[in-house]
Structure formats: structure tokens, C-alpha cells
């Protein structure tokens, strides 16, 4: 590791590019986790641990039994803050009764117990007091009836809100009683109840979502903060947390939904239409040619020339249509507004570019292997370049920006189209904004292509000075691409979506480091976190060279993944500029200090 640093220093020593030093941190590609990242992967094993914290907080604060705390949390969708707000606003009793937790009445229960035999109001039989159960609300029925009721409710998918059998009783039944009674009669249903109850933490929780992977990886993701974000599960799937479809920023969820639908519809019908039909110049409906000659009649009665699509009269000869000649080139013959065609052209324009960048990204994915192989051969040559992180950084930056670029086309399609924001801006405003955006987009596009070109160079076959030159270009372009992405997002968020009057349209923000990779939830989060962060500080202090070695590990998935652990890698790689921008907690800021010094 120390060697790496020395060679790096040497390299800079005889290099005249001073400007580079300052940006050095920026070019190191950081793993896809921001220091502020607190997204967690919740697996089947950690599901209980994940909710333990919330349960503990509520049980302790309100001195409750755990099952009552769970009932409260389920009712308030696991939002502890909201639960506490209700407590303050409405008081403890209201909080409890609204959630279906009875306020205990011991006297009532005692009276139910005192008789020798009890009439169950459900089966209408006299039952021995040993075979009845009184719920917290005071309602007493026989165990057989309770069991039957529980099984039916569980099968109906009501596990999280099994209410008392009494009419108009709002009380939620004690989960322990349900568990005990049901497991005697039908262990399988009892197991299902258990699972449903645990999964409430995912199903009834705005901060947690199932990973949408197919086949399902079994994980759920918990985010911390704004729900407009994109995350990566440990199974590798990247998705939009908001709508659970693929990560699509800077497209908004609505735009993306419309786009996907449109692409699906259009690919089936419009492709066929464009190949086989032409729009009638009068009614604009697509017309299919069913005869040999080029004079076509639309159902609406309009005659037109199949070759040029222009309206004609009805007389024709074998060689031409009377009074019509379109064989001569005329530049202004599209006088009639062909709206359908224009719309289609517009869609195809955006779709082609969207598709082209997607395809590039797929091809560049293969490039990763090639590049890695090239690095391997170069490293074995031992010619002074020991650190090839600039290539991997550039490559990662390329993927990231390709993605942004690709999704920026459907974004533009809707931003400047008639579907969503027609009434939100005048034609002039729209034109102005479109120019503004397209400038940014074009800059990004050009820079990305240049970066792509340099990364494809077979630098292992080149002489050293040539490699230095490529390295220079890649390093510069990597930074430039990131800046272009940032600028484009700034334009989108501030000048386009930010100025909408009638609607609010939000997108997942751009992060230089890419889509946040959620880390596995540790079973004991509190102590681990402290442990790891102190470790991180130690590492910082004792091993300054890890700054340059960090990128070498960036593409490997992390299994130990703690937030603080992640920030250990991050802080070394993030730029000074970004450290200032993105540092949220003081802890992270502290962690960043040694990196700056180093």
C-alpha cells in the first residue's frame, strides 16, 4: 500500500499538470454509497431485529407490553414520530382506543371469571370456565369459537388486525393468545400468522419496501430520509424506491410509468403502422394500402398519393395521378399539419436516443471485462504505473452518466411534450427551457462519448507517454462528466421541475457516487455502529495510504456493510468539494478531515 502511494507521488512529481492535483480526489471512483447512506437491506433473518428498535422504543416510552406496542405501531404504519405526535395531541387513552388497545378493566374481568359455567355467546353453549378466554377488552368467549374466528381472519389476510368477536368491539386480540390457540388446531396457519405479523414491518411501513427482484431475493430495503431515491439491494438490483421499477432518474416516476407504457404500446402498433400505413392528409387516420396503384382513397373520402402522402384528385392513369406530380423534389410540400406523424416522429426521436444510450451501456458493460484484462496485463509489466484506478473510475463514471443520459430522453419527451405540462408554460417559455436543457444534455452527451472513446483505448499496447496522455484525458473527462451531470440535474430541478406551477414533480436526486448500495442490517445496530466508526477513525490515523488504495476495492460487494463502515471508504475518495456539499452529520465531517490532510 505504501508503495502505491510513493509511486503515485513520484508520478505527480515529474508531471507538470498541476491542476490535476486539486481534483485528484474527485476522480477516484467511490463505491456506490454516500456517507449519508443509511439504507439497509432487511433479510428474513434480520426482520425481527429491524423492528426490535421501534418496538423497544415504544414499549419503554409508554410502558406497554410488546404486543400492544406492535398494535400501536401497525396502526401508525411504524411511524414512531407520528405515534408520539398523536400521544401528545390526543392523549394516551385516545391513542390506545383508536389503535384498538383496550384500557384494562380488571374488575370486569374478575366478574367474568366468578361464575361456575359460562354461556358462550357465539356457539350459545354452556362452557366450563377452563375452556373460555377473556380478551383484554373484557369479552369472553369459548376457546373453540375464538380459534375458529382467528383462523378465518388469518386466512382472510387480516393477521395484523384480528379484532375481538363482540359486536362493535374495536379491540385487537392479544397475539400470544392467537398464537397459542391457533397452533393447537392448525400449526400451519399459526405459522402464517407469525409471518404476516412480522412482515407488517415491511408491508405497513412507508420507509420499507420489498426488493422488486424477480425471482425474489427475499430482501426488503429500509431507507432513511427522502423516499425519492434510488437504491441497490445486496442482490444487485437497482431500483427506484418510490415506484419499485428500475432506477430511472432524472425521469420522474410518473414520466417513467407513461414512458414504459408508451414504449410497449408503440412498439407493437406504431412500428407496424409506420411500416404499413400513411396518415390521410384530411382526417390523419393511418391508411393501409390494399391495391396496386398509388392513388389511395381514405374511408373519409379523401384521395391521396401514396408516394408523397399529399392530397390529390381522383383521376389517374397508369403513369400518374391527374394534376399531381410529386416526383420533383419540393422542400415545402408539407404544408398540411400532419399531427399524428409529427407526434410519432417526436416520440421516435426521443426513443431512438434513449435506446441508443441503453445499447451503448450494454456494450460498455462488456467493456468492463476487457478493461480489467488490460489493467491486469499492464500491471504485470511493472513500468511505473501501479495504480490504474483512473481507468476503473472513468469506467464507472461512464456507466453512471450513460444511465443519466439515457433516462434524460424520456424526461425531455414529457417535460417538453403535451402530455404532462402543457398548461404549465407558454410556447415561448417551453422553447426557452427546452433550449436550456438541450444545451446541458448535449454537453453531457459529447463529454460522455469522448470519455467512452478514451476508455476503449488499448493502453497496455501503448508507450508510456501515450498512456500518460490517455490517463490525463480520462481523469479530466471523468471530472467533467460528473460536473455535466450535476449541471443537468441542477437545470432539471431548479429551472424545469422547480418552476412548475400546478404540480409538484419530484425526482431522485443525482449523486456523484451513483446509486446507493444498501447495506445489510446488523443484528445489533447500535453497538456495531459505534464499534465500526471508531475503527474507521483508527484506520484513518494509522494508515494514510488507504486513500489511494480504496478504489481498488470499490467494485467488490461489501458484506460487512455498515453505514459508518461505508463512509470509511467514501471519505477517502470523495472530493473536497463534495465533502462540503454532502456532509450531513458531524461524524462524517470528522471522518473526512484526515483525508483532506492526507
Amino acid at each position, binding site marked *: 500500500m505504501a508503495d502505491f502511494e510513493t509511486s503515485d507521488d513520484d508520478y505527480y512529481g515529474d508531471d507538470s499538470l498541476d491542476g490535476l492535483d486539486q481534483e485528484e480526489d474527485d476522480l477516484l471512483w467511490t463505491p456506490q454509497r454516500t456517507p449519508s447512506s443509511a439504507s439497509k437491506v432487511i433479510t428474513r433473518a434480520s426482520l425481527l431485529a429491524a423492528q426490535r428498535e421501534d418496538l423497544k422504543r415504544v414499549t419503554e416510552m409508554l410502558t406497554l407490553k410488546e404486543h400492544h406496542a406492535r398494535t400501536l405501531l401497525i396502526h401508525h404504519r411504524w411511524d414512531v414520530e407520528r405515534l408520539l405526535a398523536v400521544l401528545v395531541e390526543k392523549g394516551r387513552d385516545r391513542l390506545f382506543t383508536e389503535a384498538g388497545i383496550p384500557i384494562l378493566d380488571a374488575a370486569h374481568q374478575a366478574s367474568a371469571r366468578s361464575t361456575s359455567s359460562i354461556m358462550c*355467546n*357465539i*356457539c*350459545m*353453549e354452556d362452557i366450563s370456565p377452563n375452556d373460555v378466554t377473556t380478551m383484554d377488552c373484557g369479552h369472553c368467549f369459548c376457546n373453540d*369459537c375464538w380459534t*375458529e*374466528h382467528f383462523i*378465518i381472519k388469518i386466512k382472510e389476510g387480516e393477521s395484523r388486525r384480528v379484532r375481538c*368477536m*363482540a*359486536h*362493535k*368491539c374495536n379491540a385487537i386480540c392479544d397475539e400470544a393468545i392467537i398464537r397459542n390457540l391457533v397452533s393447537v388446531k392448525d400449526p400451519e396457519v399459526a405459522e402464517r400468522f407469525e409471518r404476516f405479523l412480522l412482515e407488517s414491518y415491511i408491508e405497513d411501513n412507508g420507509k420499507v419496501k420489498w426488493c422488486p427482484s424477480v425471482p425474489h431475493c427475499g430482501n426488503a430495503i429500509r431507507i432513511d430520509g427522502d423516499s425519492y431515491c434510488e437504491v441497490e439491494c445486496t442482490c444487485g438490483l437497482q431500483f427506484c424506491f418510490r415506484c419499485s421499477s428500475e432506477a430511472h432518474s432524472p425521469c420522474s416516476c410518473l414520466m417513467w410509468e407513461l414512458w414504459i407504457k408508451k414504449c410497449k404500446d408503440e412498439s407493437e402498433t406504431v412500428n407496424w403502422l409506420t411500416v404499413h400505413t400513411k396518415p390521410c392528409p384530411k382526417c390523419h387516420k393511418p391508411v393501409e394500402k390494399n391495391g396496386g396503384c398509388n392513388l389511395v382513397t381514405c374511408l373519409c373520402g379523401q384521395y391521396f398519393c401514396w408516394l408523397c402522402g399529399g392530397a390529390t384528385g381522383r383521376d389517374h392513369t397508369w403513369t400518374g395521378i391527374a394534376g399531381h406530380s410529386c416526383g420533383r423534389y419540393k422542400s415545402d410540400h408539407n404544408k398540411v399539419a400532419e399531427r399524428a406523424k409529427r407526434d410519432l416522429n417526436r416520440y421516435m426521436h426521443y426513443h431512438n436516443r434513449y435506446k441508443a444510450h441503453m445499447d451503448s451501456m450494454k456494450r460498455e458493460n462488456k467493456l468492463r471485462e476487457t478493461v480489467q484484462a488490460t489493467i491486469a496485463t499492464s500491471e504485470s509489466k511493472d513500468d511505473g504505473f501501479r495504480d490504474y484506478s483512473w481507468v476503473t473510475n472513468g469506467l464507472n463514471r461512464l456507466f453512471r452518466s450513460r444511465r443519466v443520459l439515457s433516462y434524460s430522453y424520456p424526461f425531455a419527451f414529457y417535460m417538453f411534450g403535451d402530455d404532462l405540462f402543457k398548461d404549465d408554460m407558454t410556447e415561448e417559455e417551453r422553447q426557452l427551457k427546452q433550449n436550456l436543457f438541450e444545451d446541458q444534455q448535449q454537453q453531457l452527451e459529447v463529454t460522455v462519448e469522448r470519455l467512452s472513446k478514451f476508455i476503449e483505448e488499448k493502453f497496455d499496447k501503448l508507450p508510456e507517454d501515450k498512456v500518460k496522455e490517455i490517463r490525463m484525458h480520462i481523469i479530466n473527462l471523468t471530472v467533467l462528466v460528473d460536473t455535466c451531470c450535476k449541471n443537468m440535474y441542477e437545470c432539471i430541478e431548479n429551472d424545469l421541475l422547480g418552476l412548475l406551477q400546478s404540480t409538484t414533480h419530484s425526482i431522485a436526486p443525482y449523486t456523484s457516487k451513483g446509486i446507493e448500495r444498501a447495506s445489510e442490517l446488523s443484528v445489533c445496530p447500535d453497538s456495531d455502529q459505534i464499534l465500526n466508526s471508531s475503527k474507521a477513525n483508527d484506520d484513518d490515523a494509522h494508515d494514510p495510504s488507504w486513500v489511494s488504495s480504496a478504489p481498488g476495492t470499490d467494485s467488490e460487494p461489501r458484506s460487512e456493510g455498515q453505514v459508518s463502515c461505508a463512509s470509511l471508504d467514501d471519505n477517502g475518495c470523495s472530493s473536497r468539494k463534495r465533502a462540503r456539499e454532502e456532509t450531513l452529520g458531524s461524524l462524517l465531517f470528522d471522518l473526512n478531515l484526515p483525508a483532506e490532510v492526507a
Partner: protein
Amino acid sequence: MLDVSRVQKELVEIDRDKRISGVSITLHGDDISHLSGTISGPIETPYEGGTFQIDIQLPASYPFEPPKMQFLTKVWHPNISSQNGAICLDILKDQWSPALTLKTALLSLQALLSSPAPDDPQDAVVAQQYNQDYPTFVSTARYWTETFAKRSSLGIEEKVQKLVEMGFPESQVRTALETCGGDENLALEKLC
């Protein structure tokens, strides 16, 4: 399996005070899961004097799931379909509790007849009329009660025929009868 013993107990209970309650249940042959209920129209409502038949199907999990009830007698009411007699009542759906019985359900239907909930309608046409033109609603409901829920009184066709024989055009006779809630004397006054 259907709790036969409970259903039998319920039937005995209903039979015991059917005179006071105004609701009764009869068996449909041997099948205890298919019953037929009867409720009398509540007084001081357009349904007064009518007797309403209700088809009752008990699911196998009764009483843990609600009985399925449907009006067999045609009735003009915002919460009851004028087409097929389907009922919109919370206790027959998600608010059902095993502690409720067939009797309480039928009594709830009776209560529903006296206090409609037009904001949660089953029949949008009726509900709209109830909200916008209450007098017409009342007379239509009364006409339907007269026509479909009264076995003892003269059938509507007979009334029509009687009035037509007096020399009034049939269409006018029908309109007059409808607006007067099936009362032939009032209709006659109107026609004269």
C-alpha cells in the same frame, strides 16, 4: 362446517317472539344453510304495511362469516338494489361480528328500511331521487310496497283495469296510481 346447533337455537329464539319483533324465518326444505326471512315494513315509512321476503344463505363458516342476504321482494330504497334486491349494509360485510345473529341482522334490515343511508347507496338512481326529489321517492317507494309487498290488497293490474273500465286512458291511470302510491281512490280523484 356450519354450526347447525347454533342455527337451530337461533331459529327457536326467533320463532319464540316473532309477533313482537316483526321478523321471522322459515326453512327451505331440509337444507339448513338456505333460509327465508320475512320482515314487516316499519310503521310511518313508505314501507308500512308491506311484508318483505329475504333470501338467506349461510356460508359454511357461519357465524364467523356473515350470512348472505338479499331481498326477494322488490323494494324501492337507496341501499337496496331495485334490480336484484342486493343489500348494502355494513354488518352484512366487514362489520359483521360472530356475536350477531340472524335475528339481529333482520332487525338491522328493518332499521335500514326506516332510516336509509343515501350517501352510501346500493342503487344510485334511487339514492339520487331520495336526495333530490324526496316526495317522489316516498310515493314511488309506497307504490312499490303496495304493488310488490302486499299480498292481501288488490293487485295493481286489477286497479288499473278497474280505472280503465271507468273510461280513463291506461297510461294516465298508471301514472296517477304511481304518483298516489297505489291508492286507487286518490288516483281516481286525480284523474277526475
